[in-house]
């Protein structure tokens, strides 16, 4: 069983989550929300805040369940369905609490919080944590940095798409253009950060 305290380099995990193993552009997870919510900047900021929060919290709650219940009883094959159940119920719970106590935050997050329950980037980060055997602190750091990387790319792409809309370019409007922007961003990210290793 991995330790609670970090055994891996936390800075390395942070840089891996944000840049070198970016969930959107290098691992291609969470592309559905990337395409749907990068039309304007405010919704992309709301979505990436919600994703960062849920990725961090999902890492916090799934690690003990995996290492204290699933692994001792030899039930690792149940990890996917177990994690989906945990994330969905957790997001519902958070939605209730935020709606009751922080109505302003609830309104600004809006529809994005329930959407995240089926976001593949969130499931991806907890499965990667289990696969890589990260320590407790390490997996939380990896989850939060993955969310920050997600937010960075959402911000970049929404800026570019807003600029394209302002210029009134119709040639590859809509989703085709968004896929083209995603492909070129991914080309640049893979090329630049592919070489950086520790």
């Amino acid at each position, binding site marked *: 069983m991995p330790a609670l305290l970090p055994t891996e380099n936390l800075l390395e995990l942070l840089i891996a989550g944000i840049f070198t193993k970016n969930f959107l552009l290098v691992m291609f997870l969470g592309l559905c929300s990337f395409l749907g919510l990068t039309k304007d*900047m405010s919704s992309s900021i709301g979505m990436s805040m919600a994703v960062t929060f849920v990725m961090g919290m999902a890492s916090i709650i799934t690690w003990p369940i995996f290492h204290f219940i699933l692994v001792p009883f030899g039930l690792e094959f149940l990890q996917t369905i177990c994690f989906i159940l945990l994330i969905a119920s957790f997001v519902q719970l958070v939605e209730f609490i935020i709606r009751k106590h922080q109505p302003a935050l609830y309104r600004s997050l809006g529809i994005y919080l329930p959407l995240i329950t089926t976001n593949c980037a969130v499931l991806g980060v907890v499965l990667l944590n289990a696969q890589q055997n990260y320590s407790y602190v390490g997996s939380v750091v990896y989850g939060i940095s993955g969310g920050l990387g997600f937010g960075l790319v959402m*911000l*970049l792409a929404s*800026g*570019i798409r*807003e*600029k*394209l809309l302002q*210029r009134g*370019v119709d*040639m*590859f409007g809509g989703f085709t*253009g968004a896929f*083209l*922007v995603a492909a*070129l*961003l991914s*080309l*640049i*990210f*893979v*090329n*630049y950060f592919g*070489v*950086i*290793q520790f």
Partner: protein
Amino acid sequence: MKLIISAPPHIKEDVSIEKIMWSMVIALLPVTLMAVYVFGLSALYIVLVSVLTAVLTEAILQKMSDKRITIQDGNAVLIGLLLALLFPPNIPLWIPIVGVMIAMVFAKHAFGGLGHTIFNPPLVGVAFLMISWPSLMTFASAPRFGASLPYILEYGATRLADVSPLAMIGALYLLYKRYIDWRIPLSFIVIVALSALLLRIDLSSIFTGVLILGIFFLATDHSTTPVTKIGRFIFGAGCGILIIIYGQFGTYFEGICYSILLMNCFTALIDKYTAPNPSRRYVSWLKKS
């Protein structure tokens, strides 16, 4: 006194897209001739094939999409020439064709053509080729001129543009005529030189012909860089920092290409957050009085 009555725009200055693009092509001619002299006819073939492919691709694309054919404005020639200068001299000739077509189709015309590009077209072509055929894009044996004049005649040149930083002298004319902005090159050079001095990197390994080409011709591309003055300083400084970071892990040539592309991604954000807001000042002045 003679009065001239005409409809707007009342442009006094003799500046046009054609003039800017063709002056940039002419400013690149010395380094092209130098490359042909150093590397022989293979360099000439690469340049010719790139420029011809660029012009043909643009003409075919505009014919297909029922637009006015604008090959005479020089932008296609410039993209082909810039891309040719970033190739090593011993590549098979289908590599320039593929690279130029990628640059013209996916980086220039897919985004709406001249003035609408988000990513620098020549660099997109290079990035695509580097990730697809990395072994063909590297050059092992390099001509050497002896170490006595490293800054004037590049020794160990690996790209067509590497022959001599001094051959980029045409950029000064472009700066003088204000066809390219001085803010990006200034902050770019200052950041690269300062960090090279602080980190004790050999200056001759960074200041190659490709870096000079990147600073004056690639990083100053008009539509892929910020429009605000502060934004341009930020853009140049960001390029410099990213090159130094990349150089710690890889080669400086790739660092130059990818860091300019990466800053192109940030251009929209830089523009958004450095946009001047005159009404805010006015509102605070109103509140005070």
